[in-house]
């Protein structure tokens, strides 16, 4: 029985490739499969090739794969671009005048169907996507009823007629496959039946991050649109007003963070979301939040940005910027979820850390994590509870009996009780300049030293529940280390190479003590999507691993394949 199935649909941008891919993914999830997807698109809205790739497996997996079992070509370009990913037993569905099924020299089956003219006959020229979904569904052994259910949900608003023609088109696809391709079927769906009983979520990294923030009590987001982060703003813009929250699209990224810092100063859980170029613009304000000790969560979804890279492509190249960006020295925490599931939990924890340590917390994502969807088990809301740290209530603040509240009171743990503006007995001054305990500008040397220590040392012990994910391979001296959306690929590569795998989720401050233990006597190989091996640099700064560490880097805009990782690591071992 086939344990995984890899599928890709490609065509011209604007042809509904995305929704076609998503529909198939959802049918697979409904059927009980674990699904991982990857979208490729170009920096324009219409025209140009785009594709939606997925890998479905019986067991839970985080990798979107590199081969293709079923290739749906809605244009010639799709076939030309992806032919090399086909193998013996794969099936390519293409458009042509007459039906023909041929086995190619490479051993895959090329199935030609006049999709367009059939679609026209069915009364909707766009139905060719649906016919090819029907063919795919039949080949993969999926129940047609799942398509029918989904169509009804999906096109509910568009009316009976639309639902009906689409269902008809899918059914037609099933018939075509049964008639012409029955000998090539890949019985994948049958084994899933039991799993289909458990509902799964199908969600993107951006959505999980937004949802996690929402559940953590975030009620304010201000931002400026930028791919691949926009969805965080879009999801919250839709949902926050339902619970008395607000999303504001403001004039630029600087305003985006400053509005959020203002709202947070007022006592609201607030955030901003952006991608690399926007993060650069926010730098000074991040410094302000650090200095003024105002909690703020910043989601930074990395990609190759304008000015440095391929704007629509995946990259993990902002790491150093997130850890060090902005002038001077401020406290900050940088988290990087390893999976979409973790994005939910880490986003929630980010708000707790921000409140607890009164500093900026950056949640790093990357394009691969942000924009692609995966099936995940339902989230466990008991895993994270809301902790607002030393935010004072009216009564607590008035207990201090101060006419001018010492906002930056020196305390043992370096964290000062925080009143909100508007509280009767807690008028206070907040400042992004060096200040004394009252918040007044102060250039006194002793004060400067005390305040710097207070701010920079307070986060030393900050730690999230799962600062890294670790799969040890006890026999092996080698350990692969990664971050973010490479989790699935590295995990599979490590398993095949029989080496260890550690995926870091808390990048700053580094959980050094634990890491040192794990890394002891091991050869460390970081696997990362940037030129300078930024993650390796970070690890080297924290630990003496200089003579036993290397890196596998890839910066061509594409995610790693398991094969690449294995080849490159073998060369090193």
């Amino acid at each position, binding site marked *: 029985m086939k344990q995984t199935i890899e599928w890709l649909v490609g065509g011209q941008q604007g042809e509904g490739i995305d929704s076609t891919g998503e529909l198939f993914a959802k049918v697979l999830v*409904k059927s009980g499969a674990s699904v991982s997807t990857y979208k490729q698109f170009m920096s324009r809205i219409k025209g140009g090739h785009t594709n939606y790739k997925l890998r479905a497996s019986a067991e839970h997996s985080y990798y979107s794969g590199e081969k293709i079992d079923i290739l749906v070509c809605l244009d010639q370009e799709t076939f030309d671009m992806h032919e090399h990913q086909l193998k013996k037993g794969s099936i390519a569905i293409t458009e042509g005048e007459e039906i023909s099924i041929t086995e190619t020299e490479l051993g895959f089956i090329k199935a030609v169907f006049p999709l367009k003219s059939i679609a026209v006959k069915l009364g909707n020229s766009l139905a060719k996507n649906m016919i090819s979904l029907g063919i795919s569904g039949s080949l993969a052994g999926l129940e047609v009823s799942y398509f029918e259910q989904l169509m009804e949900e999906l096109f509910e608003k568009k009316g009976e007629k639309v639902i009906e023609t689409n269902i008809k088109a899918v059914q037609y696809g099933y018939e075509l496959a049964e008639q012409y391709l029955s000998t090539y079927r890949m019985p994948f769906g049958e084994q899933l039946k039991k799993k289909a009983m458990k509902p799964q979520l199908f969600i993107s990294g951006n959505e999980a991050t937004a949802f996690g923030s929402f559940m953590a009590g975030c009620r*304010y987001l201000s931002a400026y649109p930028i791919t691949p982060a926009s969805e965080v703003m879009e999801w919250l813009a839709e949902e926050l007003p339902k619970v008395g929250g*607000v999303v*504001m699209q403001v004039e630029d990224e600087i305003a985006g963070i400053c509005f959020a810092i203002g*709202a947070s100063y007022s006592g609201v859980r607030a955030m901003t979301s952006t991608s690399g170029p926007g993060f650069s613009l926010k730098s000074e304000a991040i410094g302000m939040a650090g200095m*003024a000790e105002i909690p703020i969560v910043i989601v930074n979804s990395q990609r190759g940005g304008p000015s440095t890279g391929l704007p629509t492509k995946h990259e993990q190249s902002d790491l150093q910027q997130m850890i060090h960006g902005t002038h001077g020295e401020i406290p900050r925490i940088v988290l990087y979820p390893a999976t979409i599931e973790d994005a939910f939990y880490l986003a929630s924890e980010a708000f707790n850390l921000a409140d607890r340590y009164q500093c900026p917390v950056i949640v790093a994502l990357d394009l691969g994590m942000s924009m692609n969807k995966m099936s995940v088990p339902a989230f466990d809301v008991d895993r994270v509870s809301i902790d607002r740290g030393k935010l004072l209530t009216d009564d607590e603040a008035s207990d201090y009996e101060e006419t001018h509240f010492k906002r930056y009171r020196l305390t043992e743990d370096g964290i000062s009780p925080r009143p*909100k503006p*508007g509280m009767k007995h807690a008028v206070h001054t907040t400042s992004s300049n060096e200040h004394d305990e009252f918040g007044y500008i102060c250039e006194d040397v002793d004060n400067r030293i005390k305040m710097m220590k207070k701010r920079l040392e307070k986060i030393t012990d900050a730690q999230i529940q799962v600062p890294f994910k670790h799969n040890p391979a006890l026999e092996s001296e080698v350990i692969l280390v990664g971050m973010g959306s490479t989790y699935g690929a590295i995990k599979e590569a490590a398993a095949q190479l029989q080496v260890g795998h550690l995926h870091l989720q808390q990048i700053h401050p580094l959980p050094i003590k634990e890491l040192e233990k794990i890394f002891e006597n091991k050869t460390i190989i970081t696997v990362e999507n940037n030129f300078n091996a930024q993650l390796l640099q970070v690890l080297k700064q924290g630990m003496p691993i200089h003579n036993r560490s290397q890196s596998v880097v890839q910066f061509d805009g594409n995610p790693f394949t398991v094969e690449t990782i294995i080849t490159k690591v073998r060369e090193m071992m």
Partner: protein
Amino acid sequence: MATMKELKGDQPTWCPGCGHFSIMAGIQKSIVSLGYEPHEFAIVSGIGCSGKVSEYVRTNGFHSIHGRSLPVAQGVKMGNPKLKVIASGGDGDGYGIGQGHFVHASRRNIDITYIVMDNNIYGLTKGQLSPKSAHGFVTKHSKQGNKEFPVDPISTAIVNGATFVAQGFAGDIKQMNDILNRAIEHKGFSYVNVFSPCVTFNKINTYDFYKTNLTTVEKPLETREEAVAKIRQHESLVTGVLYEENRDDFQTKLGIEFDLQPNISGKMDHQLYQTFEKQFTC
């Protein structure tokens, strides 16, 4: 009700005679005469000599960064609509680095008051040209005179939709206080540019210069066009409330009940989770 004494904050370090003193006193007087208490206000300032005002007036104060007092202040107001919020800064702060925010704050009409301490020069960085410096203005760094024309922020605010636009002079305390009172009570984005002589670096726009050259308008002009014409006619050297209009402020326009404040420590809300999880379930 606050008293002037209660509103005294940190000891000012401004040069004796600096116009910023009277603007600070003006803000304090307005708070007193309008009957507010110190805790009901938040003053958000930028950076510059002007930026110090948030520390010198003892309400809640937030000394932010150069040019960003407006976005921070608007965020503060969004976070707590009950607070009275004043944004303030210099002409460099507001019309140079912060000009973009100024235009958008005018359009947006969040209910805050923006007070610019306009000395036609950069004070804190020791006397460079400001976007408000006149064409031909000579400084140490521009010995051949300013090659550019000054910005016209008053007209900018008016044409971009601000609902309260006024100009005052630090040397005419009575008029300035009257304007500030009205600005603070105006519902929506109220903007006041106050001429504030820099006695150390600006030898042209002095108290005497303003005393000789300013014209006062007695009441706001009827339309935006008339207001702009008036400002042009006097090359911006006019004081008084130039334009005022009632328009729903941003938060009213959003039309939802805000509930931004009350999230306290505790468990996540299961029911809320279930309601919103549905859209992702397959």
